[in-house]
C-alpha cells in the first residue's frame, strides 16, 4: 500500500540515491546530499511549526511502498521568499489595423515577479516501477490535500514549474537565444553557477522591456512553454488538476509554469471530509482512493480501496486506517480518483 508522509532525517540516504538516479539537476530535489540534508531538516521544522502565513517553509513529502521510498515531492510555501521569484509572463499584444484589415496577436515575454509568494509545487520525483504513474498522481493529490487541510500555511495561488527542453548536449535553445545574451554564459555554465537558484540577479541582468517572441530564433520559439519528454506525465497530471500553463514560462529555460487558484485545483474541489468507518468487507474490488488525515507533522496519506457508504461514512480497510493513524468516526479526507 502506497503511503505518503513527511520526510525524516532517516530518509536522507535513500532520497539522495533517488535524486542522483533521476539525474535531472535540482528540478525536483537538490542533487547534493548536503543540500538535501538541510532541506529535510527545514522540512521537519516546517511541518512541526505553528504557521499562520506562508514564509520560508518547505514541505517534503515521501511516498513509500512496502516501507520502501518510491517517490518524493516538495512544496515551497512561498516562492522566492523573502525576495522575489521571477518568471516571464507571456503577454498577448493585439496588433490591429482596421485599414489594412490586419488583426493579429503578438506574444511578448515580460520579466515579472507576480508569482512571488505563491505556493510552489516541485514536480514529483518517482522511482521507475510498475505503479509509477499512480504514485506520481498520489503525491500530487496528497500535496494538495495537505494544502487544503492547512490553508494558513499556503498561498491562495499555486504554481508548478516544469523544466524546459534541453538538447542532447544539455544546452537549452531558449537560454541560448535569451538568457545567454544577458548573462554571457552558456546554459550548462549557468546551471553550474546555480544562477537559477538565486534569482536576485534577475533584476540586475535580465531585460526590463518585453521580448517579442516572433523575433526569437525558431529553435527558441519551439521550446517555449514545452517541458522535457520525461515530464509529460506530470504535465498531464497538472492539466487534470486544473492547472493552466498559458501565462508564465521559466526565465532560464522557457519551461512552462502552471498556475491555479488553490480553490479551483481539482483535488481540493472534489475532496470530501467524511467520517471514517473501518470495514472488513472492503477489498481489492473497491476503487482505490487517496485518503489523508488532517495532521501536520503527523500528516499521512494512503492509496487504499474505499467506498462512500449510503450512511455518508467512508469505508476503508483497517490497514489504511492504521496507516492514516485514524480510528472509526475520525474525519478523513477522501479524493476520488
Amino acid at each position, binding site marked *: 500500500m502506497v503511503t505518503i508522509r513527511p520526510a525524516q532525517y532517516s530518509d536522507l540516504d535513500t532520497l539522495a540515491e533517488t535524486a542522483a538516479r533521476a539525474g535531472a539537476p535540482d528540478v525536483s530535489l537538490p542533487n547534493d546530499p548536503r543540500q538535501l540534508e538541510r532541506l529535510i531538516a527545514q522540512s521537519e521544522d516546517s511541518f512541526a511549526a505553528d504557521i499562520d502565513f506562508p514564509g520560508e517553509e518547505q514541505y517534503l513529502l515521501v511516498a513509500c511502498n512496502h516501507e520502501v521510498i518510491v517517490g518524493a515531492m516538495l512544496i515551497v510555501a512561498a516562492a522566492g521568499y523573502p525576495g522575489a521569484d521571477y518568471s516571464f509572463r507571456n503577454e498577448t*499584444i493585439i*496588433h*490591429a*489595423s482596421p*485599414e*489594412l484589415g*490586419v488583426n*493579429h496577436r*503578438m506574444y*511578448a515575454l515580460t520579466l515579472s515577479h507576480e508569482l512571488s509568494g505563491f505556493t510552489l509545487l516541485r514536480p514529483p520525483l518517482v522511482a521507475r516501477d510498475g505503479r509509477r504513474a499512480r504514485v506520481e498522481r498520489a503525491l500530487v493529490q496528497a500535496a494538495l490535500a495537505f494544502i487544503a487541510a492547512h490553508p494558513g500555511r499556503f498561498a491562495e495561488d499555486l504554481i508548478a514549474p516544469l523544466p524546459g527542453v534541453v538538447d542532447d548536449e544539455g544546452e537549452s535553445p531558449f537560454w541560448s*537565444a*535569451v538568457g545567454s*545574451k*544577458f*548573462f*554571457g554564459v552558456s546554459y550548462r555554465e549557468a546551471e553550474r553557477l546555480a544562477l537559477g537558484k538565486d534569482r536576485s*540577479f534577475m533584476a*540586475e*541582468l*535580465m*531585460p*526590463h*522591456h*518585453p*521580448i*517579442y517572441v*516572433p*523575433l*526569437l*530564433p525558431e529553435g527558441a520559439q519551439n521550446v517555449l512553454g514545452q517541458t522535457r519528454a520525461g515530464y509529460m506525465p506530470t504535465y498531464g497530471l497538472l492539466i487534470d488538476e486544473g492547472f493552466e500553463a498559458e501565462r508564465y514560462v521559466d526565465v532560464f529555460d522557457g519551461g512552462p509554469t502552471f498556475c491555479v487558484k488553490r480553490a479551483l485545483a481539482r483535488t481540493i474541489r472534489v475532496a470530501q471530509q467524511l467520517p471514517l468507518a473501518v470495514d472488513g468487507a472492503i477489498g481489492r474490488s473497491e476503487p482505490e482512493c487517496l485518503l489523508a488525515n488532517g495532521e501536520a507533522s503527523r500528516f499521512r496519506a494512503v492509496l487504499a480501496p474505499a467506498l462512500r457508504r449510503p450512511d455518508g461514512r467512508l469505508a476503508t480497510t483497517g490497514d489504511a486506517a492504521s496507516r492514516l493513524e485514524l480510528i472509526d468516526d475520525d474525519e478523513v479526507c477522501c479524493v476520488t480518483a
Partner: protein
Amino acid sequence: MSRPEAHSPSRAPSASAGRFIVRVARADDAAAFHALVIEADGALERHAESPDASRATLERVERSLAGEASDAERGYLLLLEDCASSEIVGCVQLVCSIGLDQPFYDYRLGRIVHSSSRLQSWRCHDVLYLCNDLTGCSELHSLYVRRDARGMGGAALLTKAAQLFIATRLTEFAPRTIIEMHGVRGADDTSPFWEAVGRHFFKVDQRGAERLVAQGRKAFIAELMPKHPVYLSLLPESAQATVGGIHPEVAALARLLERDGFHFENHVDIFDAGMVLEAHTHTLNGVANGREVVAEEIDPAQGAGSWWIAAGEGAGFRVSAADGVLIEERLRLSPDTLRRLGAESGSVVRVLGAA
C-alpha cells in the same frame, strides 16, 4: 522612407558639373517630373506613379512659395536640369517640418547597461526604441539622379543646392534637418533587418509596407509596429549588422553629406534600419559658409577657384557649379555661367567655396 538612390557624387564641382543647373520646380514641370518618377521605377518611393500625384506635388511647391501652405505641407522640389537638352534628370525634395500630418516614425538606437557586481558582469545592450523624435524636423528626401546622368556631379549639386536654398528661407526650416539613407540589402535585395523584425509585425512584404507609407497610410505603423523596445542582441546577427548601416551605393553620398555637417545620431529607418543623417540646420556647410557677393561678367582667368553659386530666390532660385575669381566681394563669372544662373553683372549671388 524615400531615400537617395545610387550615385557617385564628386567632391568638388567636376568639369562636367557645369552641364547642370538646379532650379525650383514650376507647375509646368508636372509632366517632366511624372516622367522622372516613372523612370525611377520605385526609387522615388514617396511619389505615387500618377500624373495627378505629380501635379499635386508641384501645386504644393507653388503654395509654399506663395506663403499659402500650412505648416504640415510646406515644402519644395528642386530639379536637376541638363543645360544642353533642358531635360529634367534629377530632383531633391525639401520638407520644412515632418510628422505634423501623419506621425513620422523611426527607431532610435539606445544603450542599456546591465551590471552586477556580485556576478562581476557588465554588459552593454543596444536597444531600438520606436519613436517620433524627429517630429518637426526638416527633411531632404527623394534625392535622385537619372541613371544615364550619373557620375557627373549631379547629386553633389543637388545636395549643395538644397543647403543654399534653405539658407534663402532659413526661418521656414527647423533647427534640425535630416536625410534618410538607404539601408543594407542582402543578395536577394531583401533587407535582413526587415526579415528579422518588420515582417513579423506587418505580415506584408517590405515593398508593400513602403508602398503604404508612400500613399500616406501611415496610421498602420502605430497600429502594427512593436511598442516596446527591441533588444538588438536578440536578433539574428545578419540583422544586427545592418542597423545604422547604409547601402554601398550611397556610401559616397553619405561621406559628402557628412562633410557638409550631417552626422549619424542614432536614428535608423524602421523598415531597413538604414542610417538617418542629421544636422543642425544653421551649421550646414551651405547655410553657415555661404556668402553673398556681387557677380561680374568677366571671364575668370585660368586657375580660378571652383564655386557653388546660387542666384535668384523663390521660384527664380537657381544653382550651378562654376569656376570664378573672387576679388573684394565681387565674383568674376563667365557669360555662360551667368546665363545658366539667370543672373547678370551686378546680381547678388550666394557662393560657397568648393574646397
